[in-house]
Each structure stands twice: as C-alpha cells, then as structure tokens.
C-alpha cells in the first residue's frame, strides 16, 4: 500500500471517532433534523461527481455521462437535504 492510501485510512479512522463523539451528544428531540442534515452532508459525493468531467474523462462518453447523472442526483441530495433541514429547524421554538 502506498503512503497516500495509509494517510487517507488514517483520516478515515479519526473521522469515525470524531463523528461518534459529535453525534452521541445530540438530544433525541433533534434526531430527525440531525439525520436529514447528515444526509445532506453525505451528498459531498457531488465533488467526486464534478471531478468525473475532468479532461481525461471526456474521452469516454459513457463514463462522462454517468458522472453527469451523478451530479444531478448528488445535487438533489445536497440542496434538498439542507433546505428541508433548515425548514424543520425553523419550527423548533421555545416560548
């Protein structure tokens, strides 16, 4: 295994621990917005989708087309996810 891969695995393991620490503290009244907010974050795959259109990829039309469909789905996930979370959280009020 090369050094880059090891480094990324290192990042992965630390992020999982960080995620566990962060989320364990969220109270159950916020579980739904937490879930849809986290769901929007998982749309980060949009970055990967955009990068499928880089120069060497244009050569392969199928590969490029798949990437562009990915851009569409990831965008729905990101935009819809953040907006709906924002809408929900706007309703949580204290009198």
């Amino acid at each position, binding site marked *: *295994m*090369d050094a*880059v*891969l090891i480094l*990324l695995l290192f*990042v992965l393991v630390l*992020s*999982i621990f*960080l*995620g566990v620490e*962060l*989320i364990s503290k*969220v*109270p*159950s009244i*916020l*579980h*739904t*917005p*937490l*879930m849809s*907010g*986290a*769901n*929007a*974050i*998982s*749309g*980060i*795959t949009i*970055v*990967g*989708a*955009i*990068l*499928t*259109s*880089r*120069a060497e*990829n*244009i050569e*392969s039309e*199928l590969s490029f087309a*798949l990437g562009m469909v*990915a*851009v569409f*789905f*990831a*965008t*729905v*996930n990101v*935009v*819809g996810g953040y907006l*709906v979370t*924002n*809408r*929900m*959280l706007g309703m*949580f*009020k204290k009198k």
Partner: protein
Amino acid sequence: MEILNTIFSEATNKALVNVVYILASVLFIFGLKMLGSPETARKGNLVSAMGMLIAVVVTLLDQSIIDYKWIFVGLVLGSLVGVIAAMKVKMTAMPEMVAIFNGFGGIASLLVGSSEYLLSAQHNTGILVPIFLTVVIGGLTFTGSLIAYGKLSGTITGNPVIYKGQQWINGILMVALLFLGIEMIALQGLLITMDWQILVAAVALSFLLGVLIVIPIGGADMPVVIALLNSYSGLAACAAGFVILNNVLIVAGALVGASGLILTNIMCKAMNRSLANVLFSGFGSVISVGGSSTEQQGEVRPINVADAYLILEAASSVVIVPGYGMAVAQAQHSVRELGELLEENGSEVQYAIHPVAGRMPGHMNVLLAEANVSYDQLIEPDDINPTIETTDVCIVIGANDVVNPAAREDPQSPIYGMPIINVDKAKTTFVLKRSMAPGFAGIENPLFFKTNTRMLFGDAKDSITSLVSEFKT
C-alpha cells in the same frame, strides 16, 4: 481554470484546493456539533451548508475540468428538484423524504464509482477495492431506500414480506457478490472478460440485495432502517473518496456513517432488540399473543368526550404521549391547541416522546414543533417516568407498543424488556384509538384493560377537536 492558472502555478492551485477542502471539513464538523442543541441547530445547518458550498465552488475551479455545460445542467436541474421537494413536503411525510434523499446520495456515489471504473486504464487493487465497495454500498443504499420510501408512503405494503428460504437467498446473493468482488479486484476479468459486464453484474446484484434486505422489515421498525440507510449513504461517499483519493469525501462520509450508526444503535436500544433481530426477524409478521394475555384481558372501559373533558378540566398535570397514529390522523395541530387550553386552565402540560415513536428517529418532535409546541415541553421517557405516578392524566394518541406494560411485566411478550413510557402508572390514562386492533407490531396491549385506563374510541383528530370545543364552550 484558465484564469486561476495565469495567477498561480498548478501546484499552488492544487494546494489551495486542498486547503479549502480542509476548511469545508472543519465547517461540517462545527455544523454537526451545533446540531446538538436546539438553540444553535439552525445555524449549525447553515455552517455545514457553507462547507458544502465552498467545497463545490473550489472543485469547479479545478483546472482539469474542460466541459462545464453538463455540470451546470446537472447542478441546475438537481437544485430545482431539491428546492421543490424540500419546500413542498409535508412534515408528516418527512421519513419518506429522508429515505429518498438517502437513496439519491447512494446512487450518486455508485455512479461516481462506475464512472471511475470504466475510465481507469490501469486497474490496481488500491483503486478497485474502493470502487467495488462504492458500487455495492451505493447500490444497496439506492434500492433499499426506494423500498423504504415505498413502505413509508404506503405505495407498497408496510408489512414485512417474508417467504421461505429468505435467509438462504440473501446468503447466496452475498456470496455471489463476494465472488464478483474477487473477480473484479483480484482476478481482474479472468472469468468475465469485459469491464462493463463485471460492473453491470455488481450493480444488479447490489440493487437486488438492497431490495431483499429491506422488504422483510415491518413499518414499525422503519426508524432503524432509515438510520442504517443514512449511515450507508455516508459510507458510500466515503468509499468514493478512496476511489478519487479525496480527503473531504472521506471525512464527510465517515461523519455521516458514524452518525447513522449511532442513531441505529439508539433506535435498537430503545426497542431492546439487536440490529440482527430488527433486520432478519420479520418482526410483526405474525399476530403474536403474549403468554398470559388472555388472562390479563378484562373489561375495556370506554369513555366519551364529555366525561373525558370533566376529568381533564380537573387535572393539574397532563402528559401527552403521541405515536405514529397522531401523524396518520394529522392531529398535531389539534393536540397543540388542546395543550394550550389545558395550560390556560392551570394544568402543567408535557409531551412524552419515545425515541422510536413514529417512522423515523425524532419524528414526533418534528410534528409537534411544526404545530408550535415549545421544544422544552418535549420530554424523553427517562425524564418523564420518575414522576409519572403523580401525573393526573396521560393522553395516549396513536401510540401503542411504546406504552405497552407487557414490555415490563410479561417475559413472554415479544417486546419484553423494551423501555416504555409507564402511562399505566399514571392516575388516569386516556387511550385514543380507532378500535381494539393491536398496534403495528401486532402485540396485545394489557394497558387497554387496566382499571385506570379509559378508551376514547374514534379518529384521534376528531376526538381531540371535540375535546377542544368542550373547553371552549
């Protein structure tokens, strides 16, 4: 991009992009941290969205991208669909909304993995392993989420679909996927010559697996399924990060993966069941009769709205326990109105919310928040149970299993050991219910036969509305 290239060298440019990715990761982390408290949650979501925005913008500036036209088509169409869906969805339909968004995240990761697979000329193990994982996890997240969406929206049956040899079929499918993985990664096309054939087979099998693992799970177990699919969509993004060696995908994906797993764990604990039991038992497919339930059954004591009003009017403390039935009846607004009238009348009103009430984690809290209930009145079972004996009236609205005392008393009951809200210990409990039919898990509920329980039959919304008008006259 040309402009950037003229300002910076390519190396500086790459470094700049990566610094922005680090910044985006930090914003995601802060955003999630701020989601931990109702005061900061909304801002937290914005912080996280900001992280996403800068990650997308800096990616678009990557100089190796040469065709922007289709990217923008995807971005614009996707945003349009996202905005419309997010604005139009009803709060009661939130579980299926989250399910479908999970699915979209999954399919996007699958497509990214597929695109990279078809492209990469030299196939080395370091890239093939994550490609395979991206395709499989993304694929089963997609179809699993579609099935969950269908079950939640009522398009397909919410009951568990069980057939003979189900475990075997799933097992065989997983073995087949494993072999395909070996073929793709280690043998690299020894048996199947074309790359695209291997890819299509992997996609097909993971799609099938996603369907098969969700259909045997019943409606009442959906909170676990959604949490798990949420986790998978994160893991798929994470695997995609290893395909394109991109740290922001790995960090964000891992955060979501961890968050979904924790929620899954919380949901399982709240039902006192293992994840394996939720996934494989087909819980609720048979009407199970608890061992001693026939003896426990006694007289059912119905009550009418006028009598219920008299008792409520004299109550100094009221605890409202909502369940999925409240969502179905769309009764949350009437419930809030009743709560306010009770408060004006001098009662202390609290809402006791079980973690698995409804069809997704926190479902009831969102509905009551939508109806304008102050969030400090939304209480978890652990905080309500110690004082429930001094509560004058508990009103159970469309909840069943989460208030079933068999979970405490009857070792034969399938839900024995599940933490419940002890409404049977309150001075009086009203149960709003259409009929005596058992809940979604199909389990008899001895609560209905307790001497301090009164059954208020009818549509939950109608009953609450009638109570509200009694208070107003």
